[in-house]
Structures are given as C-alpha cells and as structure tokens.
C-alpha cells in the first residue's frame, strides 16, 4: 500500500524496476533505484552521465543488472524475447543503416518485429513523424534530426505498447521538436507507455507531467514536475556581486529579506538566496536606495546537475 503513495510508483504499471543497481568494476552507474512507469509519458531526467542510459539499457534488456529486477509488461526482457513485439527503443546513438532509405528502414524494422510491413503501414509510420517527403532518400544523407525521426518511425511501425526514447530530441530543430513532442502526447493519449530520457528540464516539462530524476545513479526526485519545481524552490542559489561598497549593499538586501547569507571579501560578496526573482527585483531598488554602483552580478549553481545534487543530498 505504501508503494502506491510513493511518487516514484504508479498504479497499473507496465514497467517495474525494483532495487536496480549496475556497477562496472568500482564505478557505480545505477544505485538501488526502485520505480515504475505506466501509461502516458514519464520523463527520465538527469544530467549527462547520471545513469539514465544505463537504466534504459537495463530496462530494455540490453544490459544485465548487477542487482535488482526489471519487469516489462510482466516479463523479464532478458529471458523473454517475445516482449520485444510489444516494446521498442529509440536509442540515443545513430543506430541506422546509412545505405537504406527511410522507407526501407521502417519496413525492415516492421519485418524484424513481426509487425505489419505493408506499404500503407510503413507510410503511416513515416507520416506520423512528417518524414514522407524524404521516404525514398538514403538515411546516410539525413541530418541528425531527420535520422532521429526515422528512428522514431522505425519504432512506431510496430505500434509498441511501451516506447523508450533515449534523448529523442537531440539534434532536432525547434519545429521538429514541437512535432515530436506533439506525437508523443498523441501516443500517450492512445494509452502507450512512453519513457523519455533527457537532461533538459524544460524539455521534459513540455512532454510530461511526471518525472523520475536520476543523479549520480541514484533516484533524486520523483513525481510531477510541479513537485520537483517546488522542491527546487527551497534550494539556496548562490550569487556573486561586485561593487565599490558591497557591505552597504548587502546590508540593504539582508534587511529586505531577499538574501539569507552573505560572505564578504575585498571586491564583493557571495550571497545565498532562495528567491532569485525577488533578489532580481530588489537589486535596482538597493542601488537607488544606497547609491552604490554594481560592477558585476553573476548567479551560480543554477544548472540542473547542481539542483539535483542538492536534492540527492536531501533524500
């Protein structure tokens, strides 16, 4: 019962991960992650090198876990090949045959999956990613974004119940990105389970309300994007200010309550704030009120990685 309350889990899961770990010699890539995925889109979020791809490779059965268990549609992909007729992976790397046309690639994918490889089915899969215009061109001539869309078409042709996409928006332009996101939403509405990995929070936010955040191979946060955002709002952000008289300026900001800590040095001060927007609004007022000019203002620690590291420490 308690698992249902944990935001890392969903009711009626299609993909379940229990105490999953993977280590390569001394290096721990994934550490004791338990979560589940259900119908709709779930974003697997984390900075580069966080363990997302390793986790996805284990979920698809490409890699054996060092510890823990995986279940996809009730089966272990490493011991039951039949599950591959119901799931598909769009890997981050190119994984295409440059000498095939997009149409041939999608048809090949359908035949290998035992899916409908008719001209109509192949054309529909290409149409869904807006690739019909390049259907008879060789994939080797494609841009990165076009190759990504060809790979997505290759996965869609089998109409998989579970679709796993590793950084699918890499290399796509804003128009292609919007079209792919819209396609993922359509598929989610049709009842597919879609797991999308990304290192860009804003990107995941556009695709999904539910996020599993991974940092340093550990589960950093889980739940809806709003909850993650709320968790992030309590993280003190570091700001560097340099001016002719930082002491006066910082005293004003402390009185206003927009900074929580100040560390002065010869040419400026390092500040900590939990409300960057309020600090931004107070700075011009502080300049006017104190008459002190600011020569430098720089915010640190706002990368996703540092935010998630903070969340990991807090768990």
């Amino acid at each position, binding site marked *: 019962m308690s698992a249902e309350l944990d935001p890392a889990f969903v009711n009626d899961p299609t993909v379940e991960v229990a105490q999953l770990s993977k280590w390569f010699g001394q290096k721990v890539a994934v550490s004791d992650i338990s979560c589940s995925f259900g119908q709709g889109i779930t974003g697997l979020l984390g900075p580069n090198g966080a363990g997302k791809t390793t986790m996805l490779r284990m979920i*698809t*059965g*490409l*890699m*054996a876990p060092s510890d823990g268990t995986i279940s996809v549609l009730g089966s272990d992909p*490493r011991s039951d*090949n*039949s*599950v*591959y*007729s119901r*799931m*598909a*992976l769009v*890997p981050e*790397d*190119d*994984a*295409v*045959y*440059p*000498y*095939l046309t997009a149409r041939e690639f999608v*048809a*090949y*994918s359908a*035949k*290998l*999956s*035992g899916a409908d*490889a008719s001209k109509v089915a192949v054309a529909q899969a290409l149409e869904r990613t807006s690739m019909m215009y390049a259907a008879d061109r060789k994939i080797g001539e494609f841009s990165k974004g076009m190759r990504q869309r060809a790979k997505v078409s*290759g996965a869609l042709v089998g109409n998989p119940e579970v679709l796993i996409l590793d950084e699918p928006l890499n290399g796509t332009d804003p128009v292609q990105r919007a079209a792919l996101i819209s396609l993922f939403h359509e598929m989610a509405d049709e009842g597919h389970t879609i797991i999308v990995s990304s290192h860009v929070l804003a990107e995941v936010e556009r695709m999904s309300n539910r996020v599993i955040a991974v940092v340093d191979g550990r589960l950093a946060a889980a739940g809806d994007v709003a909850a993650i955002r709320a968790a992030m709002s309590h993280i003190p952000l570091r700001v560097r200010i340099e001016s002719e008289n930082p002491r006066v300026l910082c005293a004003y900001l402390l009185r206003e309550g927009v900074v929580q800590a100040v560390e002065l040095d010869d040419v400026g001060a390092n500040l900590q704030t939990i409300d960057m927007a309020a600090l931004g609004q107070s700075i011009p007022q502080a300049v006017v009120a104190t008459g002190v000019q600011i020569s430098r203002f720089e915010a640190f620690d706002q990368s996703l990685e540092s935010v998630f590291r903070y969340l990991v420490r807090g768990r």
Partner: protein
Amino acid sequence: MTAFAAMYTNTLRQLLGGRRIFGLALISLIPTFIFFMVTRGSTRGVDSMVGELFQAPYISLFMPIIAIMLAGAALGDERRDQTLSFLVLRPVPRLVIAATKSLAAATAASIFALIASSGIAVVYANVGGDGQVFFPILAGSVVVMAVYGAVFTLLGLVITRSTLVGLAFVFLWESALVYNFAGLAKLSLWRIGAEMTDSLFEASLKLDDSAFGVLDRTMGGSLTRMGIVVVGSIALTAILLRRRDNV
C-alpha cells in the same frame, strides 16, 4: 520467415555495398591471373599446375581472406555502427540471428568463390586441360566460405579486429604450424574445403599429400567437419547474442 528473409537480404546489401565489393572482386581474380601467367609457355602438365595453384595460394589464402573480411563484417559492422541493438531488441530467436548472419556472410563470399573458380576453369580449358575442375573447386571453395563464414561471424561479434586475427590465423596457424605438425590438420579450416575438392577431383588432378596431414580426404569427412564447425560457431554466436552485454 519474414524476419529471416529481411535480415538475410539486408546483410547481403550491407556486405556487398560500397567499395568493399571492388576490392574483393580484385582479390578473387588474382588466382586466375596467376594461373594464366604460369601456364603461358610452360611445358609442365596443366593438371599438376592447377593442383598446386589450388592448394597455394587459392584455397589456403585468397578464399580465406575473402571469407574473413565478409564474415567479420556481418556482425562486426553492426557492432561498430551501433545497429546491433536494432537487431537484438526484436522477438527473433538469437539462433536465427546468428544463423542468418553466418549464412549471408557465406553467400556473399561464395559469389567471389564463383568468380574465382570460373576464372580458373576458363584458363584451364584454354590451355588444354581435359579434366573437370570447375565444380570441384567451387564446391571446396563454398565449404571454405561456410566454415570461415561461421567462425568469423562469431569473432566479428566479440573482437574489433577480426580481420587481423583472421590473417594471423591463416598465416601463423594454418600455414606455418599445421604444415610442420601433421596432427594439427584437423584444426585447419581451409583444409576442410580442400578435402572436399580433392574428393571430387579426377585421379590426374589429385592434390599433394603433404598439405593434408592426418586427414582422410573424403567428402564425408569434409562435410562432417564443416557441420561441426558451422553448428558450433552459430551456437556460440547465439549464446553471446543472448547475453547482449557487448551490444
């Protein structure tokens, strides 16, 4: 069956595409060129010459090189190009993937064996040879392609430089060592094909004994050893594909 046919066709396209085909066609024509040159103005019997050429370098060097290059690429190119995951994340038994890849490699290599054996047969006929050499040479070559095809499809999956390893195997093991230790002949791959050819050659064309060591040079022996090598290699490839950790 659809998956098998699709994978077989795609592998043939992969192996026979690009510049590789021209290089291999050239290699396959070298024995014909050599045979043509040595028979010009020679007073020796053409039957003994064709036997010598077949044994070295045709079946002991050129056919293995062609097979090694193609078979090493059958799964090796998929691994290098990161398309192996595209192949293994499918509801297709691993044994089917391994067998299809090995068969496609052997088929592609046999095309060049056909070119090579045809060339030798044409020269042989032109210089007055009266035996039948085309079919025995082709049969032996196809056996060689099958065994090297299966073994090096496996090696292409597990090592990056399977062609280099193959060349070392051919030069160091099959040539240098086996010639000096007759008992090792059973562990030589090209001799399986040579056995087949020798068993089909007419009496005037029979090959020199020295290369065969302890082998009995029968068609049955050749087919049996081919079967063991091919089945064993495909089974091992399937096991490795099942583990998937090198994908």
